[in-house]
């Protein structure tokens, strides 16, 4: 169980990490990087799976199902488009 203060520390450190990781990114990679970070929050599918797994009533099941569906689309779609874009970036020295 992650307690209150520990969670705060995690939030703070993760926020600084996110800021630092992106800070020096060149403009040429803005679009793929946005797509990449969009993929990373696709981890939400894991949470949606847990929510659906613990759903009891029909309402909860329906909402949980939608959650997993949307989360899976976020993760898979985010991955596919990011990979497609990054795949194309080549230096003239490689050719």
């Amino acid at each position, binding site marked *: 169980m992650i307690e209150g203060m520990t969670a705060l520390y995690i939030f703070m450190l993760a926020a600084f990490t996110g800021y630092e*990781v992106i800070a020096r990114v060149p403009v040429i990679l803005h679009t793929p990087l946005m797509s990449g970070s969009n993929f990373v929050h696709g981890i939400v599918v894991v949470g949606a799976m847990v929510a659906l797994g613990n759903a009891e009533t029909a309402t909860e099941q329906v909402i949980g199902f939608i959650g997993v569906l949307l989360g899976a689309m976020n993760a898979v779609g985010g991955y596919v488009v990011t990979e497609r874009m990054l795949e194309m970036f080549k230096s003239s*020295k490689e050719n």
Partner: protein
Amino acid sequence: MQLVIDVTYFVAAALFILGLKRMSSPKTAVGGILWAGAGMLAAGFITFFVPGMENYGLMIIAIAIGSVVAWVSGKRVAMTDMPQMIALYNGMGGGAAAAIAAVELIKGEVHSAAAIWLAVIGAVIGTVSFSGSLVAFSKLQGWMRKSLHFAGQQLFNLSLFGVTLGLGIWIASGDPGTGVIISFFVLALIFGVLMTLPIGGADMPVVISLYNAFTGLAVGFEGYVLNNAAMIIAGTVVGAAGTLLTQLMAKAMNRPLSNVLFKKFGAAGGEAAEVGGSLKPIEADDAGIMMAFADKVIIVPGYGMAVAQAQHKIWELAKLLGERGVTVKFAIHPVAGRMPGHMNVLLAEAGVPYDLIYDLDEINPEFETADVALVIGANDVVNPAARNDPNSPIYGMPILDVDKAKNVIVIKRGTGKGFSGVENQLFFADNTRMLYGDGQEMAAKLIQAVKEL
């Protein structure tokens, strides 16, 4: 088992951060997405073994449908449509975060007061990101052309937001029942739509980036509700990174975020200055000769080039000129294309190596030494009015100093104005020649002209 699950989530979080780090340099970028992908697969797989869960059938069906739909659409989408696709997938993530909140709130078994508050806040952010992203998608996709404006709009939106927040506080501080929870989500959905409707197409990338950060935050908050460290870390990292990326984009467009969200483009400012001079056309043969005998040519592509699908031809032209000993460079404005960095993706698709592509700060001092600047499909980002006409709506926006080149050739379909509806002084300059026609066709003619020499 719990230990294995915890360790897997930990490794996944580490892989996400390392992956994002690698994605911020072109050399390592492809590896970055693979690392992050591996982390995602591991985290998804291990979640099936979380103890005490049911509904595995539903879970697998939902994952299968979602994955197949997203995989097929992601593989098929054209590179020009990438920004709205990112918006769409991002909206899905926001919706998923909101769904988690909805299940947990309806169930009413959230473990602590802090968790309920975070569940409610995450629900608002996730829902707004969901419906807002869908509007952003529809606008960029061209399904929704007009921006909606009505009197008292901001006040109305503000009150709507207030009511939504009020319901949220009610939910967080008591046990109001399913009806209130549903109204809360419906209002948040409507707010997301109304907040995004007035924003114009040109500002949309900044908004998409903002919603990306929103979804990240929502995921982080719901991660706390579910006591899932991987979600907390991944969500918060994206929330922070997305916020920074949003600021970088807004800065590149010279549009403070508050203006993007609350001000209509071009609403301020007086009459733009009259543009003197005349438009001077040129034939493709002459333009080709001009470039073939130049020492240095700088190509300035805009979204119009991508719409005409001329990027492959332009790269062919650049290679031909290179073989003749001409130095060819590509100059990209930060907001060329639909989104910062979008044009780089489009050029990369055509095979242009990224080390021939220069951004605004690198290339601007070089225009003075360029014999020819070839502008194709770009308009506002090369308009000198941004530098010297304080009344112009685009005044203050950083531009490419194309007008300082010895000769400027502009490939343009017709005599119309740019995306912002502003007349372009560059086209009337003494050193500018207009090459009228379809981008792809004109590029082919230029290639022909150079080849025939």
